[in-house]
């Protein structure tokens, strides 16, 4: 059986681009504010959920292993608007 996931959409970041609801419609749905919510973390395959997270233009989707808490997405930073910080020179 597939592992259980914890899926969360950061509402302070979500712009309602709705790519996640297109890619994984079993998991994500738009609310009245037209922002995405993870209504059913088991509604699609892990692959589809990670694809939805990666395709979020503002990286608003956080995916974790529900049991171990391991962060599956995003990998690098807790929250990113895309960029990583430059290394000081």
């Amino acid at each position, binding site marked *: 059986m597939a592992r259980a996931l914890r899926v969360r959409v950061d509402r302070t970041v979500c712009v309602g681009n709705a*790519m996640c609801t297109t890619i994984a419609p079993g998991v994500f749905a738009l609310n009245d504010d*037209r922002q995405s919510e993870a209504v059913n973390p088991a509604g699609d395959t892990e692959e589809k959920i990670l694809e939805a997270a990666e395709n979020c233009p503002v990286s608003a989707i956080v995916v974790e292993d529900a049991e171990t808490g391991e962060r599956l997405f995003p990998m690098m930073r807790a929250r990113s608007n895309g960029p990583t910080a*430059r290394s000081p020179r």
Partner: protein
Amino acid sequence: MDTAIHDDLFAPDVIADPYGYFGRLREEDPVHWNAKYELWIITRYDDIVWLIRHPELFSSEVFKRDPRPPYPPIPEADVDVYSFVRQFFGDFFIQHDRPSHTEMRTVVHGYFTPKAMESWRPMVRAAIKDLLDEAEAQGQMDVMQDFATPLPVLVIARMLGLPQQDRRFIRELAQKLLFIGRGDPNRMRPLTDGIKGLVEYLSPLVEERLAHPGDDLLSVLASGEKRGAYSREEVLANAVLLLFAGHETTINLICNGTLALIRHPQQWALLQHDPALAVPATEECLRYDPPVKSLQRIAADDVERRGKVLRKLERARWFIPSANWDPEKFSEPDRFDITRDPNPHVAFGSGVHHCLGATLARVEGQEAFAALVERFPALHLATEELEYQPSITFRSLKALPVTWN
């Protein structure tokens, strides 16, 4: 004294200071009927977010569905040329509604993910270094002509996989497309020349990518034809779109942001001491003086907002500067603060049409601002006389001459 709000969106005072004019509208008449151009002007942050997140109420098929003539008016003799432009622009995926918008956008969306764009950062950084090396040797530059204009074309041409030796040619044609947003009555002819030149140039390249697909953006777009999401005409129109959509917009991000940083020396110094601030600084530049001033939708049905009724097929234009300076959403909105957090500006719009190239623009802005403060710590304006293009679509400086001695 006459205190009524005039409706001349192209008046010099409105062009010079959109924050004053649209800020006043936001306070006094946030859903305003502009009788001169026959359109609704939407200026509050929450109204704008509501409008652009309801694409079923406000259609993006503006070129196809707008029954009214173009504005500012064009010469009678250019009406045929306009109908060509209208049809061509109507093929842009951003001018589609769901469901075809989703099908078309999905083809290219995966190319522009935050992760994918991050991998282009070293290339962007190298292109910036080359341009600034050239400028440094001159001892002065026009940030607009010498830096901000060539950069986005260099980057997108690389992504599309266009031959390096074609760059000058592409830049010249792309320059003509900039006429779309600049209120010049004679804009239709150069625009049409630019479109036709680019289509002629891109046609054989698309043909070749269909036969021998690579991993470049043009191949990705052309694959949409095989999938049935695009016709050939639509592939070509959207190749033109990808080439120029990030052009004027990135120019303005870099110029307006550089100007804001120059005019706020303390913020400039902050960025100099901590280059990691290039990330929030770019967000603040996008908020404080956004590249795009306004965009338009067409009411798909009768809709009510704040006691006004927008009738089916009426124009609704939403103004980013007034949303980004809305005191209901941002504290001290007129303060330029590169550490501002959170910063939910709408410079890239919102909803299903949220800018496809947003992350690329962010990377370009971050790298450009970080490089400028590092290499030219004493950068200052060579003149205080700055002028803006008479456009309501873009917030475009005509030039930004600077020195550093």
